[in-house]
């Protein structure tokens, strides 16, 4: 016999949610620190937790991490800006024109089939070892999700809303401005959620291929020198930054949807 699910108070729900997370985290960290090296491999391949924490601490290379992170985030940001702007503009154009969509969409799909990392060597030749090549790479990687969601948003605008506006005498331009465009906020944010993660990924991937600064570069330096504690410290930072970026987009979505102007 199974027990009927009991209604749960908000407090109890939060306790289960955070309590479960805390327990799992504690067990994982303890296992990391205390499990014998036989389980971990040969001991040198996975640094102990305290070594990683030490690498993160004030005696570690904190300053170096931050400098690298700033470069990488800068590349991700400017690349995303380009990908976002181009994605929205192209998405609207392809969404509105069937001819353009049928002509260009297969090319967009073909480009999407190309892994962005494979483009890195070419971008380095075109734009050099500095941030520019990574920005280009991030732009290419982030464009597609935004383009597709924008395009779908335009093409799938609620027919009922268009009919309603038409019945009230709305012109084509008014329908675009007052019905189609405001309706794009939600799909564009869905695309942005994917693209933000991709932007970070593409920037680091580009740096790993060839660069003179950034997270990818210090990852390679530590790898060459077998400084595994520092390598893991950087990975931890990446996890935190990646989560923060995703959270930021969600907050921005919430903020924009709540505060959309009444027009």
């Amino acid at each position, binding site marked *: 016999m199974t027990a009927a699910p009991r209604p749960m108070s908000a407090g109890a729900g939060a306790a289960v949610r955070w309590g479960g997370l805390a327990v799992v985290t504690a067990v994982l960290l303890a296992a990391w620190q205390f499990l014998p090296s036989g389980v971990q491999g040969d001991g040198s391949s996975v640094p102990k937790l305290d070594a990683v924490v030490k690498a993160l601490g004030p005696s570690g290379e904190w300053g170096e991490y931050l400098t690298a992170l700033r470069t990488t985030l800068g590349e991700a940001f400017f690349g995303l800006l380009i990908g976002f702007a181009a994605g929205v503009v192209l998405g609207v154009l392809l969404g509105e024109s069937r001819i353009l969509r049928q002509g260009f969409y297969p090319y967009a799909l073909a480009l999407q089939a190309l892994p962005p990392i494979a483009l890195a060597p070419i971008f380095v030749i075109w734009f050099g070892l500095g941030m520019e090549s990574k920005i280009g790479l991030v732009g290419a990687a982030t464009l597609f999700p935004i383009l597709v969601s924008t395009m779908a948003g335009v093409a799938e605008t*609620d027919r*009922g*809303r268009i*009919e*309603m*506006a*038409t*019945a*009230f*005498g*709305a012109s084509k331009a*008014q329908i675009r401005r*007052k*019905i189609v465009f*405001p*309706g794009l*906020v939600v799909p564009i944010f869905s695309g942005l959620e994917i693209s933000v993660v991709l932007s970070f990924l593409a920037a680091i991937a580009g740096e790993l291929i060839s660069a003179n600064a950034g997270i990818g570069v210090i990852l390679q330096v530590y790898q060459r020198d077998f400084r595994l504690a520092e390598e893991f410290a950087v990975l931890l930072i990446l996890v935190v930054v990646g989560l923060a970026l995703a959270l930021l987009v969600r907050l921005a979505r919430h903020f924009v*949807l709540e505060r*959309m102007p*009444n*027009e």
Partner: protein
Amino acid sequence: MSTEEHAVELAGLRHVFAGRGRGRRAVRDVEAVKDVDLTVEPGEFVSIVGPSGCGKSTILKMIAGLLRPTEGSVRVWGEPVTGPRRDIGIALQDATLLPWRDVMSNCLFPVELHGKVTGAARERVSGLLERAGLAGFESRRPKELSGGMRQRVAICRALADDPRLLLLDEPFGSLDALTREQMNIDLNRIWRETEKTALLITHGIDEAVLLSTRVVVLSERPGTVVEVVTPPFPKERTKELMSTPEFAEVSGQVRDRLFASDVKVGG
């Protein structure tokens, strides 16, 4: 001019939805309505009832200027309809409110399309919302409202730019019976207080009889007018009216006519 006296004038109206394709996958032409003659006088509340798919909505869309008749003519206030008119307010089965706008701004949408939103327009909408029992909800978003409230907002929106003619296409079709009855009483009051001319499309017989000064019964597709019933009640309609023998008699008259051609009603 004599035609100026009619709010709506339909003459020999016919609409055919063109088919497409060939061979086995072809979609045939569908004649939705034919030979529809109907006039609506200023200040009237006319309902069009008919079986599912009889072209009720098609007629409304032609009056709204969303569809062109295949044959015949549509005149509103004496003028041939060539497209959507600014002096028509419309509310459809789905409220189709814009989710990113609050209640006030949804209602002002037609005003905004037709020109500048003035203080006077805001005041008029406030008055409409109050009459519709929505005072205090001006800055709520549609998702915060119940289905019935959304429909009332849609009707306020239809009236916002002070149209002379109100077109309603089953605006309460998706509501439960109780809410619907309340909506009908509210709508009757709004119609009396605003003194508009109204045309309602519905498949609810009681709803049509309760609200209308005239009920037009359409046949099965292709829809054409088979009967016009005039409920002999004063303008003010109440819930109590619905349980009187007179109401039952008029409803029965409409129902008999609808079933005369052995068709199913509903939909």
